[in-house]
């Protein structure tokens, strides 16, 4: 029997709850480490997450179309870069890799053409725009996430993984609130994308030892100068 769904408005709280319970539908391998994180003038990061390779992911959403989302999230990205030390201390158990640029996922019912044009000019490989559509029937409701734009690069781990197994998520992802299974689709475009990702240069992550970090964390130019003068 066919169920008839209608478009409906969703409250911000309900959308937040859906995202919180279904991080993987936004980005493969994503898990959240914090939410509602206040960032100076950059507003609030709705969700802060990490992917399987330890790359930070900012997820912001809104129930109206607002171009300021882009400015806010870029400012938040800069804040994260400036406050790496703080983030490291706050989430030391999360194995965050700061060599990689944080990724961005923006979710809204629609994005203006102006915003879509603007993101195309960003050369950073770290942004994904998702539309959502909330639909309800008499007994059920569902939300559809539709990818509008993405220039996210696969990190090295994901790329290696993609060589061995098919991706589970297609461009259109469904997070149905009822107990229906996720719909999985694989398309030709996705395969081409995977081939391209395999060809693209992937990098080795260089990590620093605690001794190396301590060497610089203790550095104070004033004290060093005094010591030199005494010698």
């Amino acid at each position, binding site marked *: 029997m066919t169920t008839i769904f209608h478009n409906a408005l969703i409250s911000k709280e309900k959308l937040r709850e859906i995202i919180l319970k279904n991080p993987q539908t936004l980005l493969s391998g994503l898990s959240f480490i914090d939410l509602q994180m206040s960032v100076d003038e950059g507003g609030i990061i709705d969700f802060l997450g990490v992917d399987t390779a330890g790359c930070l992911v900012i997820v912001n959403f809104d129930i109206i179309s607002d171009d300021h989302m882009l400015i806010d999230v870029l400012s938040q990205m800069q804040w994260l870069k400036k406050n790496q030390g703080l983030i490291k201390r706050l989430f030391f158990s999360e194995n965050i890799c700061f060599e990689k640029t944080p990724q961005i996922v923006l979710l809204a019912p629609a994005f203006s053409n102006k915003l879509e044009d603007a993101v195309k000019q960003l*050369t*950073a*490989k770290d942004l994904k725009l998702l539309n959502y559509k909330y639909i309800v029937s008499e007994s059920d409701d569902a939300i559809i996430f539709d990818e509008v734009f993405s220039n996210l690069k696969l990190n090295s781990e994901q790329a290696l993984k993609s060589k061995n197994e098919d991706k589970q998520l297609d461009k259109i992802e469904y997070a149905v609130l009822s107990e229906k299974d996720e719909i999985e689709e694989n398309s030709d475009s996705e395969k081409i994308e995977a081939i391209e990702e395999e060809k693209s*240069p992937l990098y080795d992550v*260089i990590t620093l030892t605690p001794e190396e970090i301590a060497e610089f*964390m203790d550095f104070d130019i004033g004290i060093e100068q005094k010591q030199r003068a005494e010698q």
Partner: protein
Amino acid sequence: MNKLKKLGKGLEDISYLFLSPDQENAAEQKIKTVQETSVKETIEMATKNICLIGNSHDSRDAFLVINLSLALARLGMKIAVVDMDEKLPCLNFLLGKTAEGEKLSDDNQIVSQGPFGVKLAGINSDLIESMLIDRAIRAKIMKEMQQMEKEVDLVLISVSQDSLCYMNPLLRNSIEEFLVFVSPDKNSMLDSYKVIKTIFSNNPIAKIGTIITDIEHMYAIDVVFNKMFSSVKKFLVKELYKYGFLFKLKQEVNNNSNIASFYDADLTACISNIAQIIILRLNLDENVKSNGELFKNILNEFGID
């Protein structure tokens, strides 16, 4: 190139400020070598090159790269600047805006002309991916880059720390020398150290020089360099070269800054000195001609034949 011969005494006078004591003798030898090459036969080899790795992705690093290229051009060198930075708008924009009366080349061309004969090219990972897929694009770009190499004495490649993750193959064998910006802030020093470690991990025989940036007091130059030098020696068992320093910018520089309208005497002197050290270090020789293989080798590292 003819102007190189006139540097002589002036360079010797200031070189002690920039070179480590044990490098001074080597530098003198190199000056002599430059002067003695006039009788040698012309030989072909890859274009001399330096890869500059900035410590931030604001426009400040691009500004320094541009000024350095202009300083080198004023010393009589033919310079090409290749922007391989993922996040900065292409340097062409910066130079294009500032060059009065000069127009950038068509969008289709990779190499364009900047002020003082400086050639400009922008290569990012998107372009590299296009080259991987499309043979025609690959051939066109290779041809342009080879032509550019043959017309210049030195190629400056600009990459930011953040872009290094996409440009890792660049760190392997093709680059002659790397220049890393190091500022006195401990977090920035840690970032710079990470870059140095990344370079040595990819290329154990790399030559890495430092430019100490954001200097407010002269004493900080040696303190910062010595700290970085000793740390690299302690943990990586490698050595660094001292290329010079840059005073802290007295005014904010943004993408719209016009180079002609911006003048900072101290900074200009610093950049000019670094330009002279570069000429000394690279032992630029007018009897050496480019074989146009530099970018071919670099792109080979990216898997492009």
